[in-house]
């Protein structure tokens, strides 16, 4: 497979010309997300399948008992793995980390782990000796842009969906034992999720650069382009911002910003990349837009979680069997 996905010049100029005419190739508006579909496995907990347009990602949450780090005896472990296989696109090599992968894994780390979405103190079993080690494995099945957005949604939804086995500690002092109850014996317990981080990526296009690229083309439209350019300079909107870019848009963008926000109107992380300076006003309105997207997506996650619970919980037996208090998340 050709080692990079650079689009052809024709594609390049076509997409950029469309943008100068305020058109996106899939007819979305500039701040519209693609169709988002979240589904959970009916047999296992913590298996989430997220489809963001054509981008498809599966997250698997699992937990096993392990030893805590020596310098953090009261905390459990939480690891997120975001390895991309050639299934997502043949340009990814198995076993070799591409630049994209590094960026994605860093942003997911900041968004979910560093922001404390999962309470690791609640994972402690016996301080300094035993704790839960929670793993989130993200599998990228199809790459059509927005891999980190989809991955963030998948892991957040997975953490909410997952149930770990209930445990009992018997004995005292050094002769303490941990009994892990199989899920057939005792109702499994949800994880302590403190907030639901949702990542949104904004792609920036420098309209003047785009117009310049098109200006080289023959045709009478050229004159129109020059006029439009002047108008836009006057209105100082030389930056076009697209929300949730497809792969094609991602490859052609001049810069990007990923904002992870939650429904508490908090920003968990911001990452701005590419080499295009953007004025502050635009960035702030992007952050505001990210919060709105986070609210919409969190609502959808909760809706799907409720539907999944209803499917599993025919007759409300599980609800009756739970001994813990309700958790209020949103």
């Amino acid at each position, binding site marked *: 497979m050709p080692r990079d996905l650079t689009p052809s010049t024709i594609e390049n100029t076509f997409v950029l010309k469309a943008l100068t005419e305020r058109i996106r190739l899939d007819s979305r508006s500039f701040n519209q997300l693609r169709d988002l579909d979240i589904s959970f496995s009916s047999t296992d907990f913590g298996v989430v399948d997220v489809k963001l347009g054509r981008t498809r990602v599966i997250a698997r949450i699992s937990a096993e008992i392990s030893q805590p780090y020596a310098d953090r005896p009261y905390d459990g472990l939480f690891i997120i793995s975001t390895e991309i*296989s*050639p299934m997502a696109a043949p340009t990814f090599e*198995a076993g070799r980390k591409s630049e994209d992968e590094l960026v994605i894994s860093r942003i997911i780390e900041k968004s979910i782990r560093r922001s404390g979405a999962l309470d690791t103190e609640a994972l402690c079993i016996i301080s300094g000796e035993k704790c839960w080690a929670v793993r989130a494995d993200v*599998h990228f*099945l199809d790459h*059509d842009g927005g891999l980190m957005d989809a991955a963030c949604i998948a892991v957040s939804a997975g953490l909410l969906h997952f149930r770990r086995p209930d445990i009992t500690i018997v004995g005292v002092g050094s002769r303490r034992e941990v009994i892990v109850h199989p899920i057939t014996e005792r109702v499994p317990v949800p994880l302590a999720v403190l907030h639901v981080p949702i990542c949104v990526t904004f792609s920036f296009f420098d309209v003047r650069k785009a117009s310049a690229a098109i200006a080289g083309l023959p045709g009478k439209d050229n004159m129109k382009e020059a006029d439009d350019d002047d108008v836009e300079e006057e209105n100082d909107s030389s930056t076009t911002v697209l929300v949730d870019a497809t792969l094609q848009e991602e490859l052609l963008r001049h810069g990007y910003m990923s904002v992870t926000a939650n429904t508490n109107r908090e920003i968990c992380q911001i990452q701005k990349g590419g080499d295009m300076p953007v004025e502050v006003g635009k960035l702030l309105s992007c952050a505001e837009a990210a919060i709105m997207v986070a609210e919409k997506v969190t609502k959808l996650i909760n809706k799907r979680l409720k539907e999944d619970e209803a499917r599993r919980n025919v007759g409300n037996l599980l609800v009756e069997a739970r001994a813990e208090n309700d958790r209020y998340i949103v």
Partner: protein
Amino acid sequence: MTVLDITRPSPASAITSFLYRVDGSASWKVGTAHIIASVSGPIEVNKRDELPDVATLEIVVRPDVGVTSTREQFLQDRIRRVVAPVIALELHPRTLIQIVVQIVQSGDNKILNTISLSASINATYMALLDAGVPLRSTVSATSIIYYTTATSDGSKTNVVVDPTRAQLEQIEKDITSVHTIAYELKGGKIERLLLSESVGSFTEDQVFECYDTAANICEETNRIMREAITKGVQQKSRWREA
């Protein structure tokens, strides 16, 4: 020799052509196992991996949970043994046929690999078909597990095919042998044995019993694959009706 007292195999289902960046994709679900396979090829190959007379076959297996371990290496090796003779590699020299098997839900417990293996083989085969890679014949695989149960006058040997994880958990401690069998089929009928992977303690009779049982199951699996492929092709050809 017929097999008696066989527990009904779990229903299997398949979907194809759902991934956009690869040439072929298939999802195989059997019991609690769910495997997704993708195939890209023939595509450009690295100079160092290039072979002058045949296509290079790259198989990557990704686990559902955790880091890649020797288990994935084992699965990759067995899948290669089944699939490499079936693909007409000599038709595309100096190219790469890249297969990625993503285990979404393994269906196995911590010790066994059999269900992942048989489901991966089926998923890989359907993905190869979907990608249009030239193949010599049809392949299907199944898992057969022998276990004992206590009865009033000693113990009885039972057989289960493609068990769900719940069934596995029930019989875990009583499993005596585990067999993964893959057949080559032509015209929906068994032709040759492609894989016979048996672990545990078993008799020669049991092995032959396995081959016969697996023959029936594989023919059934083949029918399920045909239905899924037919549906896929009808879906892809619906522009013709317009």
